[in-house]
């Protein structure tokens, strides 16, 4: 398959592995945070960690949109979905995330709420002019990659003056989240970052330049194929060895320094910075998310519907917040693999295909023959 197979070649992987083994200094630890769950997934699915020396470790970051959404916002989405006049559309993984009171969008759907998965577009029949009721709400989540499509939907809704369409906006921003990880009260030791390439197809590599200057941690914008991940790790190792705090772009086939100006303009037209957003794992982070501009207020579900802000408690013992900061590994959580599995997830990181716990469980765990024993010692990676 063209443009895919080239980035999964076994012999090139072996060559890169040899380069990394040669260039990584034995006395030194390389703690590389792959920000994005897409990278975590690739690392596990292709067994990338098996090809790296012991002192080069990946620390899994919070770049999983489903994972970082706090329970309280999910509860609001569920409240919205339970209104009889609302059809709620969202991305598929979101449906299974546990909310307060052991609810989830999937459960309220089974109980009769009209919840659908799939990408929203205004062309859906239920959103056409003249359709009754409040019509559909789009539960919009995601980093910069998924924001432009939501902007387009809002612009179309405005142009067509749709009466029955609104967006519950939960779009969040990558560079600010990276700062929050380093500024956490007990920051995790990280030597460099693999930056999410899909995000950078939109925002470019430039937003990281200031970050690198301020925090003195190199960033390599990394593609999602396994060879991209290995090549990016090698580039980070070289930057660290040379003590160069710079932004480098491994994903040159799609990312430029400036990014996609048209998409940026669309986003700027429709969205503005939210003063504060509560992330799962990172807590309240100032100017880390987007909200819909007042000019589009009639499509803003938060303004249109009263969505009461209730306190939400996560499942006791769930370590998703620490896992999302890179402070703990999934296996450090007491719930991992005991009560929390992909079939019965207690936290968001076990739900999403991009979640670190799901990746560990699905690809990397090794069960101890004696049941009831902690699995910590028995997990690969």
């Amino acid at each position, binding site marked *: *398959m063209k443009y*895919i197979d080239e980035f*999964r*070649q*076994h012999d090139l*992987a*072996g060559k890169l*592995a040899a380069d990394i083994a040669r260039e990584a200094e034995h006395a030194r630890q390389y703690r590389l945070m792959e920000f994005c769950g*897409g990278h975590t997934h690739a690392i*596990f*699915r*292709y*067994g*990338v*960690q*098996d*090809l790296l020396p012991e002192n080069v470790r990946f620390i899994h970051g919070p770049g999983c*949109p*489903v994972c970082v959404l706090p329970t309280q916002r999910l509860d609001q989405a569920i409240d919205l979905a339970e209104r009889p006049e609302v059809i709620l559309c969202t*991305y*598929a*993984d979101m449906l*299974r995330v546990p909310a307060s009171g052991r609810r989830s969008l999937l459960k309220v759907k089974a109980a009769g709420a009209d919840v659908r*998965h*799939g990408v929203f577009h205004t062309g859906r029949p239920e959103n056409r002019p003249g359709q009754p009721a409040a019509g559909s709400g789009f539960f919009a*989540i*995601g*980093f910069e*990659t*998924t924001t432009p499509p939501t902007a387009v939907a809002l612009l179309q809704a405005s142009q067509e003056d749709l009466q029955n369409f609104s967006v519950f906006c939960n779009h969040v921003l990558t560079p600010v989240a990276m700062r929050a990880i380093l500024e956490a009260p007990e920051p995790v030791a990280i030597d460099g970052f693999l930056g999410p390439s*899909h995000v950078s197809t939109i925002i470019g590599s430039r937003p990281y330049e200031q970050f690198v200057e301020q925090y003195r941690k190199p960033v390599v914008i990394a593609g999602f194929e*396994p060879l991209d991940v290995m090549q990016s790790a090698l580039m980070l190792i070289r930057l660290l060895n040379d003590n160069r705090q710079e932004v480098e772009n491994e994903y040159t086939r799609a990312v430029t320094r400036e990014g996609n100006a048209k998409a940026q303009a669309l986003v700027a037209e429709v969205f503005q910075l939210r003063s504060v957003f509560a992330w799962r794992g990172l807590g309240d982070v100032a100017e880390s998310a987007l909200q819909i501009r007042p000019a589009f207020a009639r499509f803003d579900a938060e303004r249109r519907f009263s969505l009461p802000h209730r306190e939400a408690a996560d499942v006791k013992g769930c370590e998703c917040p620490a896992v999302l900061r890179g402070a703990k590994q999934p296996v450090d959580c007491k719930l991992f693999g005991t009560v929390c*599995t*992909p*079939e019965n997830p207690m936290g968001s990181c076990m739900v999403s*295909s*991009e979640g670190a716990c*799901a990746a560990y*469980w*699905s*690809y*990397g*765990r*090794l*069960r101890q*023959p004696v049941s009831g024993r902690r699995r910590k010692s028995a997990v*690969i990676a």
Partner: protein
Amino acid sequence: MSGAAKKTSTAGGFLQGKVDMTHGSGGRAMAQLIDNLFIERFDNEFLRQGNDQACLAVPAGRLVMSTDGHVIDPLFFPGGDIGSLAVHGTINDVVMSGATPLYLSAGFILEQGLALADLEKIVSSMADAARQCGTPIVTGDTKVVEKGSGDGVFITTTGIGVLPEDIHISGDRARPGDAILLSGSIGDHGIAIMSSRENLEFETSIVSDSAALHTLVAEMVAAVPAPAIHCLRDPTRGGLATTLNELARQSDVSMSLWESEIPVKASVRAACELLGLDPLYVANEGKLVCICHPDHAQTLLQVMQNHALGIDAAIIGQVNDDAHGFVQMQTAFGGSRIVDWLAGEQLPRIC
């Protein structure tokens, strides 16, 4: 079967309408539907007797029986439809014991409003499939449910086959050292279905692999001594990964796979990439997994590759003996990973 001339004369007008509640009421409309459609298309000596049951001679050996409910959206897809699928699916379940399939039954749940022309296409396709397999549909039932209570048509088929006394193929018989064979490329059916769903349209030439595997199984069983084949299973829902996990659990063994040996068509891989799916978990309807004694793996591979439905057959892994009971895979990239049970459903990714 009474009077071909009468049927032809009514069929034209009859097939232009839609299924309504009278087609399940036991009255004239139902009789007409049964006579002009089901009996005419399925035509065989058992149905022609017009009884509520089929009376079958009991052959020597052991009887094998399996039943399968077929619900699929859309009803028609590239490479097949719910009718042919309902025949192939049940025959495959019967023959994964090593049996020769003999008879089928069919139960139809029709939704009010289903176009009779569509029903006719489905029944014809089912009749053709059953005829090609040499397994007549000998008894059946039809019910009609109100609009909204069904999804066009649901078909439940039951199959009966016969198995010689000396063949014992079962999911709990995999042994460490056994070879794992796969009869061809994976994911064709699932991707063909997804490509034709209304909200997930993309252009592809992929057609479903829906096929009855009875002749392939017969040739495999004939080619090696009776104890050589330990397990046979068709990796349908949940795909190859789920089937192998089922077999590992049933036999209390672990398995290792070689990703580079698992055949996946380039078009299926491309569609999976696009949708964020793993072909290991995508459904098949015309493939089988065979676990056999390693001494007979090459013979069986040859037999499979010489059969039209096994041209791309490959030895994809081996059965191991370790306490974990995991299916592990050496990735084509050079690492290793677990191939787990599917959690929830396979869903397209976010970004």
